[in-house]
């Protein structure tokens, strides 16, 4: 089964010194993917019961306690929670959803999550993502790419972002973010 060391193995590297942007791997993050009719009242009730969160609007996220729900697509949301809580979230959602046509799956091991924070955090991401990050609000979600890797970005605070990608790209993404947060990338021209 899942082993947190898997997530850390490739990332056992010292992050660069803090020059205005810090990078860290969030290896205890649990993730649950849910597909269904986001406009359905039963879906909203099951999501509320499992996470305490409301259904997020298009490209937004909602938060309650340890959980954050991210809008992924017109028929998909992703739940961020504690790694150990993910199986319980799935069970509670599916029980509440009853016979509704939905699918919930613990995908904690499928993706890696990183936090990029600091006043220059947005500049790290702007190096690789075709997104206007200065006009990217807190709580907003953007599925895009960083370099050539399919990536999700959520702005969790004024100076804080979480970046997630498939775990097979975790080592590459870690290296990329560390270079992006390094002196050569962040020096003012």
């Amino acid at each position, binding site marked *: 089964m899942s082993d947190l060391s898997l997530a850390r193995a490739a990332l056992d590297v010292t992050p660069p010194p803090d020059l205005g942007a810090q990078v860290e791997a969030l290896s205890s993050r649990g993730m649950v993917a849910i597909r269904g009719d986001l406009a359905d009242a039963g879906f909203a009730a099951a999501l509320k019961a499992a996470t305490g969160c409301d259904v997020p609007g298009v490209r937004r996220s909602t938060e309650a306690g340890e959980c954050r729900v991210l809008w*992924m*697509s017109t028929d998909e949301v992703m739940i961020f929670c504690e790694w150990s809580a993910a199986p319980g979230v799935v069970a509670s959602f599916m029980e509440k959803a009853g016979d509704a046509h939905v699918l919930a799956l613990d995908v904690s091991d499928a993706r890696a999550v990183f936090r990029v924070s600091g006043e220059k955090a947005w500049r790290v991401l702007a190096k690789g993502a*075709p997104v206007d990050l200065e006009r990217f609000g807190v709580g907003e979600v953007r599925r*895009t790419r960083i370099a050539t890797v399919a990536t999700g970005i959520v702005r969790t605070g004024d100076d804080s972002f979480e970046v997630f990608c498939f775990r097979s790209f975790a080592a590459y993404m870690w290296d990329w973010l560390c270079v992006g947060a390094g002196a050569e990338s962040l020096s003012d021209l």
Partner: protein
Amino acid sequence: MLLIQCPACGVEAEETEFAPGGEAHILRPEPGCSDADFAMYLFERKNPRAVHYERWRHAFGCGKWFHMARHTHTLEIFGVYAADAPEPPQEIKDRIAERTAS
């Protein structure tokens, strides 16, 4: 570089977030059709130097397919519309008529 607005998630993004899916509105011939008709369906494409109706996918974004009307020479995008639309909406046809009238 094209700037494309995805009709599914509403985001306007550059073309590197999208994957082209070729000519749109190609009808599969009925069962029992001739080999020539089926070969046409499989292989023959218009490839015009003009307005082109295309399928695209927001591959690095929300993952959804959609349709786009685009001029292959000027690269002007006349509009995007739902993946399940059997033909372009009148609004987009009108815009094309207006923009391509000389």
